């Protein structure tokens, strides 16, 4: 060491008498220097020289030059305090060529006899490594993803890292400086924690619930110990790990399992789960009910022992394949029941996986199907019996149908024969009848003058009878031809046809002074001669059954209706019909006879009152039906009659 200011350091020789003190100061592991108020370095120790890369003789040099502007400017800020007689302690940072270095510096004033500051001692420790470590630690804790806080011996939080504040939602002011118990949901827990820590215990994964700022609770695992300085409790070091998600998940899982077990025990099935090795690890309580044995007896591979010996091999082989291939398993087998017998069961299962997609085994049901099996067998028997019955009935039906067809055929033959017979008979009858009429007429011409009155009457009666017989034969001939459905259908204009009929009946109409009103009639598809016969008969009847003293009035109308308007019970299909009416103001008839008048040879009046054969309306009915139509008569005695004819409209006959 070298002392440059003898005035200032005149007493130093008494303080530093030998190299011992020099050696002692050099041995201090800190930078030590003495600077006067003019900023001249008076002396410094070896670490000081080493740190500032000084040569051996550095005393007397300007301190600002030695330490450099970076350090001196930082010292300046604290120098005022030192010059006023106070000690200043502060940290200095300096950028060197390679790195940032830190000094923990102290400036201590040195006073003269008048208590005036005459210089100061610079003392500094290189804390670069310590600072770096502290910074790294601080950075680590500040940026740690888990919460960390310190609590002093009074239970006051003295520090907390951002992760903890963020986890709970508090600001530093709302958290730090408060008692830790304010943030614990259970006061007993924090009391226990503090008690344990204060007695030197280390807490490992101590579970607690902390209160968030928003009032919610957060589950945490606390790992904590106390930093002791001798016997002094400095502060705790609590790592707070947020386990809320795990807790909630565990709670949900527990609730889910509980719910599953409850449901499993309620359903009338045996629910089971197998682990990934194919061992049964769960059976619902129905197992005991069904088998009479404890659930434990069926766990693991115990269920094998309940299988029917005949089913065992197949079931085991099938199950092993499903288990190893992680595929659904489905089987029917028999299990030994509580009574020692066997009951049929059906099982169905699916492989199950955890959230990570790892195979966990199978989950399935075991259903007692003995009742179903019995029902199925009964049903199968019923179906078989019914099928047999049906087969027999079908055979009978086919036989009956065949007989019916044969009968129809026979009937048709008979009908044809009858029709032919009627036709032939009518023709053959007409010939002798015409001869009778001709011969009797010749007889009357030749011998009529010789006839007595009685003979004349007989002659007239012969004529009358033969005329009636001719009419009867004609009507029978007409009736037989009207049933002939082989007639030619053609377009028929009813207006023209009615005019022709009126023309044929002109004499009769004139005699009766009848009025016939005809509205526009349709053009239809029909067998023409039959429809001519139909309207001829109806108009004839209208003229014939006119009322005495009343001018006959005949009205013929036509309209279009649908089948819902038809007075019969045929299947209504929304088909359109022509509704043709022939109404008169004649004598009418009793409504009770409205159906009978269409029967063959049915007469409502005596032959002496009204001539006729009783076949005309039967012919009309046959003709209309031959055209798939319907004819009905309505009337009242003294109020005329109306004949309603309904004819289906086809695309062809619709005008």
């Amino acid at each position, binding site marked *: 060491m070298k002392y440059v200011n003898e005035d200032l350091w005149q007493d130093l020789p008494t303080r530093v008498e030998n190299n011992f003190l020099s050696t002692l100061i050099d041995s201090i592991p800190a930078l030590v220097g003495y600077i006067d*108020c*003019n900023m001249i370095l008076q002396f410094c120790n070896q670490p000081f020289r080493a740190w500032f890369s000084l040569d051996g003789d550095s005393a007397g040099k300007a*301190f*600002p030059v030695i330490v450099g*502007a970076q350090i*001196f*400017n930082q010292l300046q*800020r604290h120098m005022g305090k030192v010059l*006023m007689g106070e000690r200043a302690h502060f940290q200095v940072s300096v950028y060197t060529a390679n790195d940032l270095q830190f000094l923990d510096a102290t400036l201590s004033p040195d006073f003269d006899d008048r208590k005036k500051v005459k210089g100061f001692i610079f003392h500094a420790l290189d804390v670069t490594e310590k600072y770096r470590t502290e910074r790294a630690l601080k950075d680590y804790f500040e940026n740690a993803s888990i919460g960390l806080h310190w609590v002093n011996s009074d239970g006051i939080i003295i520090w907390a890292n951002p992760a903890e504040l963020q986890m709970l939602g508090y600001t530093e002011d709302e958290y730090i400086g408060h008692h830790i118990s304010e943030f614990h949901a259970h006061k007993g827990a924090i009391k226990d924690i503090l008690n344990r820590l204060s007695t030197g215990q280390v807490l490992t994964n101590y579970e607690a619930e902390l209160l968030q700022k928003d009032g919610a609770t957060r589950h945490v695992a606390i790992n904590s110990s106390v930093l002791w300085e001798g016997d002094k409790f400095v502060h705790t070091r609590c790592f707070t790990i947020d386990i809320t998600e795990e807790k909630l998940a565990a709670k949900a899982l527990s609730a889910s399992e509980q719910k599953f077990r409850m449901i499993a025990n309620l359903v009338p099935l045996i629910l089971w789960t197998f682990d990934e090795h194919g061992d049964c690890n769960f059976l619902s309580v129905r197992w005991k009910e069904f088998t009479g044995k404890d659930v434990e007896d069926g766990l693991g591979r115990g269920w094998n022992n309940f299988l029917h010996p005949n089913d065992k091999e197949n079931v085991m082989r099938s199950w092993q394949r499903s288990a190893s291939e992680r595929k659904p398993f489905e089987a029917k087998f028999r299990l030994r029941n509580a009574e020692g017998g066997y009951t049929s069961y059906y099982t169905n299962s699916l492989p199950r996986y955890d959230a990570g997609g790892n195979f966990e085994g199978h989950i399935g049901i075991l259903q007692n199907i003995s009742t179903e099996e019995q029902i199925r067998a009964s049903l199968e028997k019923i179906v078989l019996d019914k099928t047999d019955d049906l087969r027999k009935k079908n055979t009978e039906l086919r036989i009956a149908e065949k007989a019916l067809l044969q009968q129809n055929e026979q009937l048709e033959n008979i009908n044809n024969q009858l029709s032919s017979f009627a036709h032939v008979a009518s023709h053959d009858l007409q010939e002798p009848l015409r001869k009778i009429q001709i011969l009797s007429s010749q007889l009357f011409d030749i011998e009529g003058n010789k006839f007595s009155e009685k003979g004349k009457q007989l002659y007239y009666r012969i004529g009358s009878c033969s005329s009636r017989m001719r009419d009867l034969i004609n009507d029978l001939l007409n009736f037989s031809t009207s049933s002939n459905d082989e007639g030619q259908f053609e377009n028929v204009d009813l207006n023209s046809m009615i005019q022709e009929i009126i023309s044929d009946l002109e004499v009769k109409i004139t005699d009766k002074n009848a009025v016939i009103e005809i509205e526009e009639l349709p053009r239809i598809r029909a067998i023409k001669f039959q429809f001519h016969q139909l309207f001829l008969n109806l108009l004839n009847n209208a003229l014939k059954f006119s009322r005495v003293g009343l001018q006959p009035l005949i009205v013929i109308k036509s309209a279009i209706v649908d089948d819902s308007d038809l007075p019969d019970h045929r299947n209504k299909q929304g088909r359109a019909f022509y509704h043709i009416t022939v109404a008169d103001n004649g004598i009418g008839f009793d409504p009770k006879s409205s159906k009978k008048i269409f029967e063959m040879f049915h007469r409502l009046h005596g032959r002496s009152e009204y001539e006729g054969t009783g076949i005309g309306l039967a012919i009309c009915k046959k003709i209309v039906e031959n055209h798939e139509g319907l004819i009905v008569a309505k009337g009242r005695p003294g109020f005329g009659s109306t004949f309603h004819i309904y004819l289906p409209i086809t695309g062809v006959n619709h005008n």
Partner: protein
Amino acid sequence: MEALKLNSEGWIKTSDHVFWGEIAPCEHVVQIYEDDEAFLDLLTGFISGALRAGESVVVIATAMHLESLDKRLEELETPISRLALKHQYIRLDAEKTLAKFMVNDWPDQNLFNQVVSELLVQAKGNGRKVRAFGEMVAILWAKGQVGATVRLEQLWNMFCETEAFCLFCAYPKNGFTQDASESLMHICTAHSKMVEGGKSGKDLFYRVV
């Protein structure tokens, strides 16, 4: 002497005229001012009062403040040119003066004593009392050279003790941003009186440090 009024914070109310009239030699007065007007008012009173009393004045200020001050003195019909010739009114640029004794950003005691001694010799002339205003400390303070500021104040104080002259310093208040209370305390304790206000003819508050 006008009655002094003492308020609850220890501030004494007076007028600048009375304050500067009664100022004792060896007083080291400091003003922490909020605006230049207040500062220049008080400085003008400090100088004009001395000149009226036949004392000499040494003003070491920034160029801007020197210019403003000259105008004010001229408005008061102070013959500053004539007084300057007689070294009764010595005006120096603060930066230039600082450069004469600052070594490595630190006031060198010997150089300072030399510079100030020469000035005082000139100012005293034939035995005139001397008042000095120095703004160099404020410049150092503004640069953040706190230690150098306090050291310079101490050097002034030491000089005052031996040379017996009244010294006035002034700092802008906006310079006390860092560790204001502590810094202010250190500055204040280097002085004997602290002044607030100072507009000519208006009330002035001071307190003994």
